[in-house]
């Protein structure tokens, strides 16, 4: 919502909400999920929640039903913890994170003298929320135009689609959006972004296939300044994190944007495919060495039964998951909120 404030194009009717600091806003949103004042907002938010629930359906079926299965009608003992660990590993949490979570559970079961296995479910959910909230942060509040987002990631993670969804979102908030086709390597990549730009009716800066991506970035920043764009989203070519040359190319593109902008970029988002296993951790680590990542956009969560990678990312990297993609619609790219994520997963209704 802060977009509307920033760009000052917010309809007068909605301006009833008082200005708030972003942290307060976030806190309040979490608390107020039950009782939001504006009715429209409430509808919108419950729509979001429904999308989240349906996007997480598969993970829920696989993961939560298994947890329920093994925690039904038995006492808390060591074999239960081992089974829980197994379920967590199967959900792509990774061995380290699964062990960490189960250790937490074990400690709390002892401290709080929990004996019925059913009670562990709530504890597990709490621990998961705690883990997810560790680095949680929303997209940065815009301070200066153009608000610049650079999008990076491995091949096929869903960068271009994520950019389209982001662009749609900013457009909804009446921001003037400029896209930059920085993937000059893959055949058809420029056209792909071009099609999106056309559909969304936003501007596009593109060079030819094979052009220097840093040159595209240079032009894009200057065009954004000259045209008075509110938001610039820069696409980059997909690259595996092991390709040293390509990673330094990425660093160069980032450097050029920073220099032309005369300040830090607002967001450098790593797009990660949720179906990815533990390799996502290595992606996070190595990309962060090349460019100063500000967060992760986790895509295709609806396609996997193994949303556990979110937990692994939160536990092992100092990177916030900022956005999650839970479907193919524009609205399916959502701000990541630990509490609603866990609630959707464990099948709680929001009301």
């Amino acid at each position, binding site marked *: 919502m802060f977009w509307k404030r920033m760009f000052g194009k917010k309809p007068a009717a909605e301006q009833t909400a008082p200005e708030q600091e972003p942290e307060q806003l976030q806190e309040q949103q979490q608390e107020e999920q039950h009782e939001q004042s504006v009715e429209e907002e409430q509808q919108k938010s419950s729509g979001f929640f429904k999308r989240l629930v349906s996007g997480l359906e598969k993970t829920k079926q696989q993961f939560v039903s298994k947890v329920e299965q093994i925690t039904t009608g038995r006492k808390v003992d060591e074999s239960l913890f081992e089974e829980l660990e197994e379920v967590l590993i199967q959900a792509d949490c990774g061995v380290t994170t699964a062990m960490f979570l189960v250790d937490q559970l074990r400690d709390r079961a002892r401290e709080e003298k929990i004996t019925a296995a059913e009670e562990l479910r709530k504890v597990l959910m709490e621990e998961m929320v705690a883990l997810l909230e560790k680095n949680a942060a929303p997209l940065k509040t815009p301070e200066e135009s153009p608000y610049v987002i650079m999008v990076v990631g491995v091949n096929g993670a869903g960068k271009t689609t994520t950019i389209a969804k982001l662009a749609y979102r900013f457009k909804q908030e009446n921001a003037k959006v400029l896209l930059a086709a920085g993937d000059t390597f893959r055949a058809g*990549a420029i056209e792909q972004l071009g*099609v999106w730009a056309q559909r969304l009716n936003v501007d596009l800066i593109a060079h030819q296939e094979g052009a220097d991506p840093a040159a595209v970035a240079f032009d894009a920043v200057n065009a954004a300044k000259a045209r008075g764009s509110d938001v610039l989203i820069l696409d980059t070519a997909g690259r595996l994190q092991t390709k040293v040359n390509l990673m330094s190319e990425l660093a160069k593109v980032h450097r050029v944007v920073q220099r032309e902008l005369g300040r830090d970029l607002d967001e450098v988002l790593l797009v990660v495919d949720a179906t990815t296993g533990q390799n996502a951790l290595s992606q996070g680590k190595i990309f962060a060495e090349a460019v100063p990542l500000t967060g992760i956009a986790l895509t295709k969560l609806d*396609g996997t039964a193994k949303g556990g990678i979110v937990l692994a990312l939160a536990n092992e990297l100092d990177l916030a998951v900022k956005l999650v993609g839970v479907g193919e619609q524009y609205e399916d790219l959502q701000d990541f909120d630990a509490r609603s994520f866990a609630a959707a997963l464990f099948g709680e209704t929001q009301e």
Partner: protein
Amino acid sequence: MAFQNLSSRLQETMRKLRGKGRLSEKDVDQALREIRLALLEADVNYKVVRDFIGQVKERATGHEVLSSLTPGQQVIRIVNDELTKLMGGTQAKLTLSSRPPSVLMMVGLQGAGKTTTAGKLARMLKGQGHRPLLVACDIYRPAAIKQLQVLGEQLEIPVFSMGEQNPVDIAKAALSHAQKFNNDVVLIDTAGRLHVDEELMEELVQIKAAVNPSEILLVVDAMTGQDAVNVAESFNTRLELGGIILTKLDGDARGGAALSVKAVTGKPIKYIGVSEKMDGLEPFYPDRMASRILGMGDILTLIEKAASAVDQEKAEKMAAKLKEAEFTLEDFLDQIGQMKEMGPIDQLIGMIPGLSSAKHLKGLEVDDSHLKKIEAIINSMTPEERRKPEIIGGSRRKRIAQGSGTKVQDVNRLLKQFSQTRQMLKQFSGASKGRRRKGMFSLFQ
């Protein structure tokens, strides 16, 4: 490199086993626990790991192993065997119909790499003397058709497209197009889809019914986690796959998918994608991959690569030249070219037994740019200079450095190294002509 994590952890376990003269059941259990963790961390499916460990344990704790003289080696052999078995045993070839055109269908999730792989496969088939036709059936992703057209243009392979019409109709029309234009292999690139998307899965079933493919290939991203087996299983149940192609194995994929999908679906991995470039598709050899994972190297692939890159006649000439110490900078340039044709150096290193785990090579990024520099320097010399580097004085060095975009120091270094190499060769060839004894005598005189 792919499998690096898994590989180094397994090798560590193996090293511990190897050193032992006697193995107790406890030692084996300990090793198996480590292997289990290593596999799980490599994203191998949980159930597959359990079965695998069960198999190895059953074979490894038998009397004949524990009482053998080299129990450690025996266990390693068993792990190697089982790994090979897990990945499919022997190499599986592409099934082509006896009555052309053969239809190959590429299916998979979004972003797995179907279109790129279709291009690579078409290129490979063309190299084998086929006349492939690429068919653009991805009507959903923006510019997917364009991507295939661009690839087709680069590879000089025809691409059949009908815009955004029904993919079933496109596939049918492509088939008759192929018959008319004498294309013997038809490669259908389908849109990426979720395996749970009922509507889109049905579309694939219809395409299958319409064109009766000789093989449906599932393209799987090697970085996929525990879900890989569900994906493979769903596609297999609906479509009866012929085989699997694993992509992006040049990243540090942990390889879990490689080890799981065959075990779960029973369908072989036929090819692996190992680079972004169009020649980056290799046949998959389970046995070679197993020994690569266990750090035993993959000499066979290395030799094959060398054989395909090195011109036999040239090699013989070179040997003769080396003998006579007539090695010139021109020959040197040739050699660099051949080496580059074998592929990136870091991939080659992984194939040499023992080298993949060598400590000082760990995390080593071999940079091809050094070779490029040398090439540029030599290319900036006149033919005469290449044959007689002695004539290159100060001003020529300056010119060469300028021409190649390098520094005079770089040129100096290359020339110095070259003259040292030549010196060394002279000594060798001298020795082979029987002067060695004289040389040695001269030491005593």
